[in-house]
């Protein structure tokens, strides 16, 4: 199993969620994060002093998926989140050793 961490633009969250639901992947966890990358936050002036809102507000979504679902889920997220502009974000795939559904103690793929 794998844990997908995708960093996307906040206003893309709903689209991505809908797209995933269509794939039949319902569960995911969203985290508000601040991103630093190529895309720089703009320089602003507050009371005459310059400051850089150097981070960009992003949403990180974490989705646990089975090995065979991995491929299409990643592509699905990537395509839905893409705008072609700098700041579209990144997707990370990590190996997942175990999953437990707390409510039922099911483990493995059934727990997803």
């Amino acid at each position, binding site marked *: 199993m794998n844990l997908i961490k995708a960093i996307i633009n*906040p*206003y893309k*969250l709903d689209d991505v969620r809908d797209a995933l639901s269509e794939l039949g992947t319902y569960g995911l966890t969203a985290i508000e994060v601040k991103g630093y990358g190529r895309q720089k936050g703009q320089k*602003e*002036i*507050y009371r005459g002093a310059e400051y850089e*809102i150097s981070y960009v*507000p992003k949403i990180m979504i974490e989705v646990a998926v089975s090995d065979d679902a991995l491929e299409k889920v990643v592509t699905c997220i990537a395509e839905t989140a893409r705008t072609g502009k700098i700041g579209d974000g990144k997707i990370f795939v990590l190996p997942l050793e175990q999953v437990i559904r707390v409510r039922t103690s099911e483990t493995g793929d059934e727990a997803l």
Partner: protein
Amino acid sequence: MEGNLSQLSYALDTFYFLMSAVLVMWMAAGFAMLEAGLVRSKNTVEILTKNALLYSVACTMYLIVGYNFMYPGDPISAYLPNISFMLGADHTVDAVVAGGEGAPYYSAMSDFIFQAVFAAATMSIVSGAIAERMKLWPFLIFAVVMTAFIYPMEGYWKWGGGWLDQLGFQDFAGSVVVHMAGAAAALAAVILVGPRIGKYGENGEVRAIPGANLPMATLGMFILWMGWFGFNGGSELMVSNVDEANAVAAVFVNTNAAAAGGMIAAALLGRVLFGKTDLTMTINGALAGLVSITAEPLAPTPGLALFIGIVGGLIVVLSVIAIDKMKLDDPVGAISVHGTAGIWGIFAVLFSNSDATFMGQLIGTVATFAWMFIASFVVLYIIKKTMGLRPTKDQELEGLDVEECGMEAYPEFANKN
């Protein structure tokens, strides 16, 4: 001796006027808090800036030309006032002591400040309706024209002694002259600027965009309620004898009763329609009650005032839903609160004020609406074609605060989605 008495009476009426003006000025804060609470955090600084600056612009333009335009010394006709600038001298002691018909009984300066804050209120109504999607400076340029000419024009028609007044149109403190007038301008702006991105889905469904800070919005309502005692109470224009004092007191009682009725009615209707008690509708209900009674807060019994407020509260809830269905995006419900309830209020005058006629009220309402809507539409249209009214899609998605003001309202906690 007698002279001293009329002087003292002049002083009391002037002081009563000034206190009323303070309360109405305070309404500017009410509008600011109400609107700042009902928008998303990413557009909060911008709406605050709009509210602060529009008040200053209104007071300035009204001082320079608006007041004279609304109360001209030598009007061109009953339809057209006249232009002149700045304020004249205040009343002399002699004029006051002389007494007799039409002798001045309160300071002209106090009258100005009281009138000025009314102009600002009219403009505040617009800012809420176009929140979250209209550029700052184009809005302020509209505010200049609005408070210098557009509002004073129809104000002259009624309160300046123009044709609507001669026609017997009755509007005590401005359900139509101020509130519906502001709503008409707001409607023109809403049509020209269009709805917020994401407000209406492809399949035309209405999407909720919850306000970011409801305690702030609630505070706004309480401030407006408080200010309304000055708004309606001051509009009696005199307090210095038994009858006038009783009248002002009656206005206070009725204003309060209508607001209370409107709030309770809106809360209950919301509870019935939605299954839950919608605080924002409850707030709108109180304001709708206030707007409804503004056309005639003196003549009704408290019981009737309560009833007028209740109907206003019911109307506003339905109006908010209806206007949303028509895809007119009004984030704070300004058009429903000030427009729909204002129209109800102007006709409710017929219940208690025998001087009012149905035709008179109808003509006054239609004429005012037509003027405010068309004039505002034209001016805004010109601004749209020249500087543009709306930020780019990206700017709007990112929020107007960073775009227009370069700062965030809650930099440490807001998460901008």
